[in-house]
C-alpha cells in the first residue's frame, strides 16, 4: 500500500517536473530559436547572467520574471469570475491528460511490479478525449468573458473548430482501436514491441488524419484561426496579461507535449526501440543484476519515449512555422468534407482488412 502510494507520487512528480518544469519553459525558447533558424535569423540571444548568454537559454527565465511582474488586468465590463476561471480550465486538461500516457513499460523492481504510467485506465484513450473536449471551455469562456469583440470572435471560432475536429479525430482513432483491440494505452504500447506492428505501418492514413486533427485541436498554425493575430489581435486571450496569459501559453505548449506523447504511443511504438523487445533490453543489461537490469532498461525506455516526444514537438514546430494560416471556411471544409469522410473510409478499409 505504502509502496504503491510512493510509486504513484514519484511518477506524478516525475511527469509534472518534466512537463511543467522542463518542457513548458524550454518550448518557448525552442519555438523562438527554431523559427529563427528556419528563417535564417539568429533568434533570442541577449538575456544574460553575468554576461553568460548560452545561446539564449536564459530567455525563459527572463520571460518568467517579466510576465510575473506585470499587472494582472481585468477589462471593464468583463465577467470577473469566468475571466479568472478560463485560464485554469485551459491549463488543467493539458496537465491531467498525461496521466494515462505510458512513458515506459512494466518492470519488476525488488519484487515490486512497476508500471510506468500514472493511471492505467481501461478507457485510457477516451479519458484523453474527455479532457481534450473540456479544454474547449477555457478558450470559449476566455473569449466570452473578456468583453471584447476580438476575443468573442476568437472564442466562437475556437468552439466551432475544436468541435469539428474532435469528431474527425474520434473517428480516426476508431481505426486504431480496431487494430489493437484495446483502449488501454499500456496494451497498445505492449503490442508495438514488434516493429512491424507499429501504428504507422498499420494505420498510415490514420496517422496523417490524427496528426492533422491534433494540430487543429491545439489551435496552432495553420489552424490558429482562434488567435489569428492579423485578424483578431490575439484572439481569445487578447485581454489577458500576467500569470493568466502564461497559463494559456503554458496550456498550449503542454498540449503540444501531450499530443506528441499520444502520437508516439499510438503510432510510433511508444517506449520501444525498433527491433528491440523489452526482454532483449533486460538481458542486454543482465550484468547489472536483476534490479539493475530492470532499472537500466527502464531508463532506456523512458529516454526513448521522451526522445520520440521531442521529435514530434520539433515536427509540430516545423509545421507551425512552415504553413500559412488557413482561411476560416477552408478550416471548416477541411474538417467536415475531407478529414471526416477520410476517417470513415479508414474505418471501412480497416474493417475489411481485419475481416479478411
Amino acid at each position, binding site marked *: 500500500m505504502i509502496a504503491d502510494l510512493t510509486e504513484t507520487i514519484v511518477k506524478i512528480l516525475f511527469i509534472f517536473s518534466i512537463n511543467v518544469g522542463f518542457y513548458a519553459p524550454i518550448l518557448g525558447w525552442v519555438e523562438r530559436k527554431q523559427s529563427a*533558424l528556419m528563417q*535564417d*535569423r*539568429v533568434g533570442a540571444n541577449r538575456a544574460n547572467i553575468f554576461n553568460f548568454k548560452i*545561446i539564449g537559454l536564459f530567455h525563459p527565465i527572463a520571460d518568467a520574471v517579466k510576465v510575473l511582474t506585470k499587472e494582472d488586468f481585468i477589462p471593464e465590463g468583463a465577467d470577473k469570475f469566468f475571466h479568472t476561471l478560463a485560464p485554469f480550465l485551459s491549463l488543467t486538461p493539458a496537465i491531467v491528460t498525461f496521466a494515462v500516457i505510458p512513458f515506459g513499460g512494466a518492470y519488476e523492481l525488488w519484487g515490486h511490479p512497476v508500471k510506468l504510467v500514472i493511471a492505467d485506465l481501461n478507457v485510457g484513450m477516451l479519458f484523453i478525449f474527455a479532457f481534450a473536449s473540456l479544454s474547449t471551455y477555457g478558450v470559449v469562456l476566455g473569449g466570452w468573458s473578456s468583453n471584447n469583440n476580438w476575443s468573442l470572435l476568437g472564442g466562437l471560432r475556437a468552439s466551432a473548430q475544436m468541435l469539428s475536429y474532435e469528431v474527425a479525430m474520434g473517428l480516426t482513432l476508431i481505426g486504431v482501436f480496431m487494430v489493437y483491440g484495446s483502449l488501454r494505452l499500456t496494451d497498445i504500447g505492449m503490442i508495438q514491441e514488434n516493429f512491424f506492428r507499429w501504428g504507422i505501418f498499420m494505420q498510415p492514413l490514420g496517422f496523417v488524419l490524427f496528426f492533422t486533427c491534433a494540430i487543429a485541436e491545439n489551435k496552432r498554425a495553420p489552424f490558429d484561426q482562434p488567435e489569428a493575430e492579423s485578424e483578431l489581435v490575439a484572439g481569445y486571450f487578447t485581454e489577458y496579461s500576467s500569470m493568466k496569459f502564461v497559463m494559456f501559453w503554458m496550456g498550449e505548449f503542454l498540449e503540444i507535449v501531450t499530443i506528441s506523447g499520444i502520437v508516439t504511443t499510438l503510432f510510433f511504438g511508444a517506449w520501444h526501440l525498433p527491433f528491440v523487445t523489452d526482454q532483449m533490453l533486460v538481458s542486454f543489461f543482465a550484468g547489472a543484476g536483476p534490479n539493475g537490469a530492470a532499472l537500466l532498461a527502464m531508463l532506456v525506455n523512458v529516454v526513448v519515449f521522451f526522445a520520440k516526444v521531442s521529435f514530434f514537438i520539433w515536427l509540430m514546430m516545423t509545421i507551425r512555422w512552415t504553413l500559412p494560416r488557413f482561411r476560416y471556411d477552408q478550416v471548416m471544409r477541411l474538417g467536415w468534407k475531407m478529414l471526416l469522410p477520410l476517417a470513415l473510409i479508414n474505418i471501412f478499409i480497416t474493417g475489411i482488412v481485419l475481416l479478411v
Partner: protein
Amino acid sequence: MTDNKAFQAWVGTLPADKLKPKKVRKNIELSLWERVYLIEVLRGLAITSRHFFGNLVGFVVPPKGKKRKIPTVYYPEEKAVMPPAYRGRPTLVANADGTERCVACGLCEKICPAFAISIVGDERQDGSRYPGSYTLDLSRCVFCGYCEEVCPKEAIVMSEEYEGLCTTRRGDMLYTKEQLLKPVDQLQKRIDYVRRIYAKCNY
C-alpha cells in the same frame, strides 16, 4: 556612355533563359498534385527543415574562420560596413591641409528642404571665400543628400556615420563647422560615388 557599354557586355554574357522575363503563374486553378495538399506540405517542410539543419550546423559552436550563414549582424559587437551609397551624417570635406573646400556659395542652404543648414560667408586676405560659420541642425536634417548633389565644389558629402546621432538635448544637435569637417581621404569613396551617379544622371 562607357558604363552603358559595360552593361551591354555584361548582358551578353548571360545565358538566354535568364534574359526571358520570368513567367508568373496567374491561373488560380491548381493541378491535382497541388490539390492533394499533403505533398506540397511535405515539400514545404523539406525546404524549411533544410534551412533549419543548415543553420543548426555551426550555430551552437560557430566553426573557426568560417563565415556565418545567417546574415544577421550582432550590432553592438559587430558593426555593419555601409556601402558608399549609404547616406549617413553630412560632413564637410577638409583638404589635406585642414582647410575646408566650401566656398560659402549658399547653394546647399538654398536647396535644403528642411532648412537645416545656415552659412555665414567670409573672405580671406587673398580674396577667396570661406564659410565663417557653417551650422547644420541635425535635428532637422532629413538625410536627403540634396546638399551634396547641388554642391559645385564637392565640399559637403554624406558620410557613412550612423551612430551617436541622437541626443536628448537639441543644442547638441547643432553641428558647427569644426564638428562637421572630416579629412578628404576618409570620404574619397563617397566623393567618387557622388561624382559617378550625379555626373551620369544630370550632366
